[in-house]
């Protein structure tokens, strides 16, 4: 692939990302919660995938690209913080927003330290969540853009340009 072709491909990816609907992965063990959240976000032109367990969600992020993950903090088997850690290891660019029924901020601080984009307490306002998903997409695109630029620079170096 020539250097200009790499640049073109990067631009195409960027344009596609800008025009496409936000892709969201919702992770919560409460199926009723997932069903309604999914319906409401879909009606806001978002593409939503749901998962009832953290381990399933970790598999999901390996199969598909998401702009944001909305992750419940307390789930059977693996808690949200452990899931957050594993997701960030697998996909560092992934923007993860934690939702929690906890009344304290202790876990929220821990989540931010582990790389979460944000931390919201349940019940949360969907308009606030939607805004955060849009910001997550922008943030992720910036990171992907930077990663692409690094790839171009690396390729230029290898071609000796």
């Amino acid at each position, binding site marked *: 692939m020539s250097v200009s072709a790499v640049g073109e491909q990067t631009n195409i990816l960027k344009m596609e990302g800008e025009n496409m609907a936000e892709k969201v992965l919702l992770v919560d063990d409460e199926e009723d*919660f997932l069903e309604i959240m999914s319906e409401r976000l879909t009606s806001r032109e978002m593409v939503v995938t749901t998962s009832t367990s953290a381990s399933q969600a970790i598999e999901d992020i390996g199969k598909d690209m998401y702009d944001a993950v909305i992750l419940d903090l*307390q*789930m*059977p*088997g693996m808690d949200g913080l452990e899931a957050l850690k594993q997701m960030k290891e697998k996909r560092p660019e992934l923007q993860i927003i934690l*939702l929690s*029924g906890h009344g304290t901020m202790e876990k929220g601080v821990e989540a931010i330290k582990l790389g979460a984009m944000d931390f919201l307490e*349940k*019940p949360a306002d*969907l308009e606030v969540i939607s805004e955060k998903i849009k910001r997550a997409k922008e943030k992720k695109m910036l990171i992907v853009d930077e990663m692409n630029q690094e790839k171009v620079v690396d390729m230029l170096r290898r071609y000796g340009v």
Partner: protein
Amino acid sequence: MVDLAGKGGLEFFGAVITSVSHEIKNRMAIVNEQAGLLADLIHMHGQGREMDPERLMRVADSVRKQVATADGIIKKMNRFAHTVDTLRQPAAVDELLGMTADLAKRMADMHRVTVDVHSSQTPVTVNTSPFFLMNLIWLCISRAIQTIGKEQTILLSCEKTEDGASLWLDMTEAGDGDDTSFPEDVSALADLLEAHIAFHPEKKRLIINLPMEIRAHERISRR
């Protein structure tokens, strides 16, 4: 009561309230989304989309279901809170077992462990402190959860005995090498309730024998 219950009792009370409040918050989060969904449907109707009565009925049914669940959780919490009212009273052991198992469900779910209760054929009643008996059962369940593996079951049951009541906690899949010793606070509570506690490794069964009546007033006041 706070002074009488001591640190262990307060920790137990706190753990139950934390778990219950988390459950209630989850129900509220769902009801909040249901209200949001209704607002969305009205907004879309205002933009010319036809209103689907069946969809609205489903949302209403779902709200009722969440309210019923939340009501059940609050009733359990209320009954639990009332266990500190009297230091000694006739207590239905099978009911307390069921109530403690319900309250421990979230803790068990987090570890992917199931807690089942086998109802006794005849009522099992002893004169004891319901709060401290629940505390003891809770600690035993908690210890058992740490001991057995994921996807396993803890079975609780009780029966009437000549001297009072016998309460069983079966850890069907505990490994032979697992540490099944119980922490100090379990022994202290057993002492307080004048209960005899023993673990039978061959059956992987913990047995708590309760007397027909405890001298709770005197013993708890001296703590």
